[in-house]
């Protein structure tokens, strides 16, 4: 009797146990819902932060400090990476163009690639890894140490005091960093064009001028502003939602980097599609 009951129960459990394929679909669904919920919460945080913009004067010292951290602190590493990328692109593309006797187009190709895509994306990657992660960790630690509670207990809104200046600092820094990345990338490309393919610096720049429009440069800057809003908001949101002590701070930092990469690339796809197909 007991044996038969056990057998029936086991069969029922086996029937309830989903197949691996169903489990994978369930996992994907769960992950998508989680990402959508982060995006929703971050949007609300962003709107909240924007509502405090009129009080920007009160957060001026924090804003200046954050611009210094985000902007000047990231400049050297971004310049290095943009310069090297410009050089690598020039070597790869220049070799292919040389075969067709079209090295003269190198400036236009590298210029357009940097201004439309590489400049804003490299700036975003550097900022999300260097500044976004640090913002998530800093705010997460403040949550763990009850510093956020202390602010609230003093009637100081943490979104106005911490989040708004951080997002604004990125919005100020990112277009500048993007413009720097654009120019240094092109300079790196021009250096390789001159040394390897005997293309003069001025003809490289003339080619870049022909291949580029003001709109290309401007659209890259607009993208960088959108990326800045995404990175700042997600980093602060992850920090503010930190739980479980030191382990939670680590988790918030990792989540900030991963989610920022996903949402920056997603936003890039949407904006690039819009710019290329409709404008």
């Amino acid at each position: 009797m007991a044996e038969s009951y056990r057998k029936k129960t086991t069969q029922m459990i086996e029937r309830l146990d989903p197949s691996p394929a169903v489990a994978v679909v369930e996992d994907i669904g769960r992950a998508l819902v989680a990402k959508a919920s982060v995006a929703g919460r971050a949007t609300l945080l962003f709107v909240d932060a924007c509502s405090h913009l009129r009080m920007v004067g009160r957060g001026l010292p924090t804003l200046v400090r954050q611009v210094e951290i985000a902007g000047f602190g990231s400049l050297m590493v971004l310049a290095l990476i943009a310069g090297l990328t410009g050089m690598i692109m020039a070597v790869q593309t220049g070799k292919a163009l040389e075969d067709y006797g079209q090295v003269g187009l190198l400036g236009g190709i590298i210029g357009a690639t940097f201004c439309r895509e590489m400049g804003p994306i490299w700036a975003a990657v550097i900022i999300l890894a260097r500044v976004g992660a640090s913002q998530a960790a800093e705010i997460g630690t403040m949550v763990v140490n009850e510093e956020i509670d202390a602010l609230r207990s003093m009637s100081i809104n943490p979104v106005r005091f911490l989040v708004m200046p951080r997002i604004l600092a990125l919005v100020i820094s990112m277009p500048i960093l993007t413009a720097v990345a654009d120019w240094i990338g092109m300079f790196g490309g021009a250096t390789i064009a001159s040394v390897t393919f005997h293309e003069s610096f001025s003809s490289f720049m003339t080619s870049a001028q022909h291949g580029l429009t003001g709109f290309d440069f401007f659209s890259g800057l607009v993208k960088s502003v959108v990326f800045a809003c995404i990175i700042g908001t997600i980093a602060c949101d992850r920090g503010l939602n930190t739980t479980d002590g030191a382990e939670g701070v680590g988790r918030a930092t990792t989540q900030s980097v991963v989610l920022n990469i996903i949402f920056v690339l997603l936003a890039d796809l949407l904006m690039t599609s819009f710019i290329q197909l409709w404008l």
Partner: protein
Amino acid sequence: MATASIWSKEKMEAAAPLSPVPAGKSVLIKIRDLHKRFGSRHILRGINVDVYKGETLVILGGSGSGKTTLLRHLMGMLRSDEGSVTVETLNLNTASRADMETYRKRMGVVFQGAALLNSLTVLENVGLPLVEVERLARSEVRERVIEALRKVYLPAEEILSLKPASLSGGMRKRVGIARAIIQKPEIILYDEPTTGLDPVTVNGVNELTLELQSTLGVTSLVITHDLEAAFKIADRIAMLYLGRIIAIGTKDEIKANQNPVLQQLLTGSTHGPLTEGYVTKPDARSGTASYAKPSSTKPSTTTPSTTTPKEG
């Protein structure tokens, strides 16, 4: 023969009745039937307590008893699921944002780890509410910060430009107290003010709490599990256990209370309902309640009809 009293689980966990307000006292904070749940966990299970104006009420309780949750309700950071927290006529559950801001100006909080902002100096930390909320001029902020730091016996001029990381634990706690009193609050909430400090600093913090009460006339609510500190600074003591106030009264009343939970906390014994969660029939020879671990070698003292496992 002494009268035996059986402390059943229900009796031990029963909420203490509200005592009438003594003559000459007025109620500043009124907590009524306060319930709070986090998911399936029922943390506060009907708190009823009055805090009188100008008194120091210490709330004692073990880990997980709901002390911090109660404090967060008083800070206006949590809204209750049922019941109310009223400060004079302001119901914190239904208060508007503007009313809460006004209330928070009347209230100072001393956090367990001081909760100073690590990126700011002592001057910026203590003066933060004056700059951000009251928007005072820098010179006035500096003056008020120095005054507050002196009140907590800190060498103001020497530490103004230091960051919290450069201070000792005791100094950080004092800076935290200075920040809590800088707006001259009527109510000070202390969250474990003496935890993690050496005995000399603990005494210093206790004396400071007493002094602030006498000089500033503030109403203080102290959440702690430090018995010595509690008996030193309290006008009244309340015992929080499993989300209910199971005993409240003056120091003498608390000492005389025979609730085994309270007695175990006061004596620091490792045997009792807090650690073992089992209560048995009274011992026939001594006439007092006796406890046995679930794996006790004396099963005869434990009968199934009276053995009740403790929750959580």
